């Protein structure tokens, strides 16, 4: 199975990427079949994402990342919290993705932030975004504030979320190439 991790951390090393890697490793442990992991670092695509917004088409690296996401059986998406929401770059990556690419795809949402007071960002920002994109968002989101890295509880949340994602991945809808809507059906629908 194919797991794609979208990590929108900006610094190196990045706590966002650290959380992403822990989640991916947990999914690999919990899955019933071998899982190939591919990581998309949104930071590396920043310029191509901006060009896609102004131009309407992706550059080569961005196109490869988009294909990987569309062809995945499951997604882990992790963003740092900026001004009480996902980062603009994280959102822009999904803004330039084909609007059908996530339909029926299981997604684990996660975020990092400086304080635990932002933890609801998962529920008021990320979950609605992926619901709009018609993805299947797993019930457990994982938020890691700075203090969580030294505290109990994070590891359990990671395992629980990973288990939920791993269980859904065999059911993912994958898209390859344009879908055929037979013309006669389109015409008939108008009559």
């Amino acid at each position, binding site marked *: 199975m194919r797991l794609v991790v979208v990590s929108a951390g900006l610094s190196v090393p990045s706590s966002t990427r650290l959380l992403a890697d822990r989640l991916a490793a947990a999914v690999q442990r919990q899955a019933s079949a071998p899982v190939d992991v591919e990581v998309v670092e949104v930071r590396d695509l920043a310029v191509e994402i901006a060009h896609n917004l102004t131009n309407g088409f992706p*550059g080569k690296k961005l196109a490869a990342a988009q294909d990987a996401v569309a062809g995945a059986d499951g997604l882990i998406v992790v963003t740092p919290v900026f001004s009480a929401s996902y980062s603009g770059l994280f959102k822009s990556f999904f803004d330039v993705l084909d609007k059908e690419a996530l339909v029926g795809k299981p997604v684990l949402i996660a975020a990092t932030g400086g304080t635990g007071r932002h933890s609801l960002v998962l529920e008021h920002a990320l979950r609605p975004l992926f619901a709009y994109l018609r993805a299947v968002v797993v019930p457990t989101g994982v938020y890691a504030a700075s203090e969580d890295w030294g505290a109990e509880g994070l590891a359990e949340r990671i395992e629980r979320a990973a288990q939920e994602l791993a269980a859904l991945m065999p059911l993912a809808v994958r898209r390859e190439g344009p879908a*055929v809507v037979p*013309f006669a059906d389109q015409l008939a629908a108008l009559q």
Partner: protein
Amino acid sequence: MQFGIFTVGDVTPDPTTGRTPTEGERIKAMVAIAQKAEEIGLDVFATGEHHNPPFVPSSPTTMLGYVAARTESLILSTSTTLITTNDPVKIAEDYAMLQHLADGRVDLMMGRGNTGPVYPWFGQDIREGINLAIENYALLRRLWREDVVDWEGKFRTPLQGFTSTPRPLDGVPPFVWHGSIRSPEIAEQAAYYGDGFFHNNIFWPADHTKRMVEFYRKRYAHYGHGTPEQAIVGLGGQVFMRKNSQDAVREFRPYFDNAPVYGHGPSLEDFTEQTPLTVGSPQQVIEKTLSFREYAGDYQRQLFLMDHAGLPLKTVLEQLDLLGEEVVPVLREEFAKGRPAGVPEAPTHQSLLTAARKAGEKKAEGKKAEDKKEAVA
């Protein structure tokens, strides 16, 4: 293989002088470009249709009628005709009229290509874009093919006993291309009817164009019109040339950097690498254009966008001279090489008329044979 020009009719300031042409100047420039297209031996001139500034061509048949009177052999087409917000009855009549005036030198490219606000200005809704394209075109086909039409649909007032006039020249409706960049539904529509499919690839990387064209070809065969290789494909392209490629890059860069459709995004170099845009010598243009065949297969129509990014008319006409003298003759020769025998040319009024007569004769023969059988019985 047909070669031609397609224009969108934008009024764009020249970034090197700051001067913006008037609407009148731009309209006359488009006519001059059309006439030049015939002079340099191109096959097609296609005008866009827009109903919002900064574009001028709101009335394509008026322009094409005028061009028809000033040309002899040029095929007059559109890029695109709005099948969504135009009344299909008016399209049927306008273009049949143009067909008569231009002695059949007319075809059309259908498209949805307008921005959100344009739909309500014409009483429509952009969310119905695909459905409008499907219903309106289905009606348009009937109006051109049936003398008396009774019709009822979702988007237009019903018709009872309606005859669209004039009837198409020689009873042969204009050939139709469907232009679409990313909607498989439109490629599907083109395939269903056995019409042409034009992919305007000018802002798109090759693999996207390849996917769309392959999809259309596959569906064309699925609907029994021929093999995938026999489907009728058109592509766009945009170029800027000087004899010396460095001169081309130097002269075009300020236009590229400031053009509404290119500027302030990727560099000229990145853009030329990823899309059909070619800025260089005629030889480079030839090589790039020939490479389209590698991903789109042997195709029927190549249209170039030449009057873009605010280039002054004088420069555009110089570009057309280079295109006619140095590029298109080589392209004609090279594209003909290795072209499989079964791949048809783009349909013209003449070829459609010949095919219709043949089909008519066959039908008549079939009827005669049947009559004979009956007589014997």
